[in-house]
């Protein structure tokens, strides 16, 4: 099997697992919704503040929900030794990693895009300023979460305190994409008078390229032994 | 000599004391851990 078809095979596998466990994904959406509500309660009934920081709340909710998604990302593989089985096939570890990372990327993108209309209602902000650009920014931002997240999910898969370790390791790492994506989202939504969007998108792009390449290589070394 | 910023000495001494204290403490800690 060529590397490409292995990749697509792994991606299909992970999306299928996601679809079969779609109750869990719906739960993820509910979690994000609850967080959006909580942010509003915590900030208070201040429409100006809520409107201004709406992108931040959305991305914080997505970041938090991503932990729940990623933690069980490798659960199936670890239980019952499926990971060893896959590697013995032999499956190219790059295909394993990128298949899973892309699946996580798609799920996170879907989650974020679904959160926007809810945020638009809750925080009274129009998020349709530049829909195409916004979608692009969302994909890049979720990519910044998916690549290092999938790597760390594999890394912490067999540890005792995976639910603690994954966010503790992941969150400092994703400071740059989070910073950049919130800025970029604000600019897409509220307008970009000084043309800063390209710089933030550039930063996101650099991070994504760095961690999508580094992640594959490190994952391969990780599962080697 | 007075600079533009007033009252800096206290903070300067605190920073130096804290830093040296930390280095010495860490060194002692290493010595103790090596012995056990």
């Amino acid at each position, binding site marked *: 099997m060529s590397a490409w078809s292995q990749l697509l095979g792994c991606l299909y596998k992970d999306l299928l697992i996601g679809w079969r466990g779609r109750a869990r994904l719906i739960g993820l959406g509910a979690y994000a919704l609850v967080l959006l509500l909580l942010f509003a309660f915590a900030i208070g009934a201040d429409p100006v503040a809520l409107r201004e920081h709406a992108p931040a709340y959305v991305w914080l909710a997505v970041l938090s929900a991503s932990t729940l998604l990623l933690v069980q990302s490798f659960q199936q593989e*670890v*239980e*019952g*030794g499926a990971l060893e089985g896959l590697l013995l096939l032999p499956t190219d570890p790059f295909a394993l990693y990128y298949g899973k990372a892309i699946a996580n990327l798609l799920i996170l993108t879907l989650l974020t895009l679904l959160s926007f209309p809810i945020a638009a209602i809750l925080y009274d902000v129009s998020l349709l300023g530049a829909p195409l650009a916004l979608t692009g920014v969302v994909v890049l931002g979720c990519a910044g979460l998916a690549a*290092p997240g999938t*790597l*760390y999910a594999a*890394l*912490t898969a*067999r*540890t*005792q*305190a995976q639910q603690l*370790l994954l966010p*503790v*390791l992941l*969150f*400092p*790492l994703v*400071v*740059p994409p989070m*910073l*950049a994506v919130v*800025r970029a989202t604000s600019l897409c939504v509220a307008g970009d008078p000084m043309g*800063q969007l390209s*710089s*933030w998108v550039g*930063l996101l792009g*650099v*991070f994504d390229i*760095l*961690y999508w390449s*580094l*992640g594959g290589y*490190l994952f391969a*070394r*990780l599962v080697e*032994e | *000599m007075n*600079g*533009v*910023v*007033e*009252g*800096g*000495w*206290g*903070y*300067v001494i605190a*920073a*130096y004391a*804290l*830093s040296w204290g*930390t*280095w010495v403490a*860490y*060194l002692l800690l*290493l010595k103790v*851990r*090596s012995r056990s």
Partner: protein
Amino acid sequence: MKWEAIAGGLGFAVVGVAHAFGLFVAPSEAAMGETGRMLYLHVPTAWAGMGSFLVAFVGAIGVLWTGGKRWDALVESAVEVGIVMSVLLTVQGSLWARPTWGTWWTWDPRLTTTAVMVVAFAGVLVLRHLVHRPERRAMASAVATIASFADVPVVYLSVKWWRSLHQPISNAGTVDTLMLVPFLVACFGMLFVCAALIGSRWRLAMSRLEREDRASDLPDRPVPLSLEGRP
């Protein structure tokens, strides 16, 4: 005598002299007044922190490249020393910020990046405590160290841009020649101190890894696959 003792003794002596000179002999800085004297402390500590994490990064590459306890011990010791230095750096930055700008925290890119690095590398140490099998632990720490270190320039850049949106970043200013000497001497001495601390910590890490190696010669009780990683 172990090399770390010599290096450490020398380093501390050199730094001590530089600090004494900087505190009591050198003139106070034009714009910053007495707080400028923190330069002899702050910048060498920054070098020590960054240098330690760089050593950890090299060690992590060594773990991936060749494996072996020596490289893993280097990762452990360099990360720990790096965290000590970086936490200290953050506190120093706070003590500098308070008299200079009136707040305990400024979102200065270097300070903020250091804070993020502390959390990232502290995560590596936490990871080491929660993974029990030595080979997995070594591999996991190496991967996490490499990922965290590769992030440092990106974090710095992003915080710098983010900050520049709200206010221009003020520079520490140029350094007068009489202040340059204790400054450089302190930096130089600090590198020796850092090396000595990493070296001592490395010995400790090696002895622990070797002890662990010997202990595992006891027969393993059979463990089902899904419970791997738990003690």
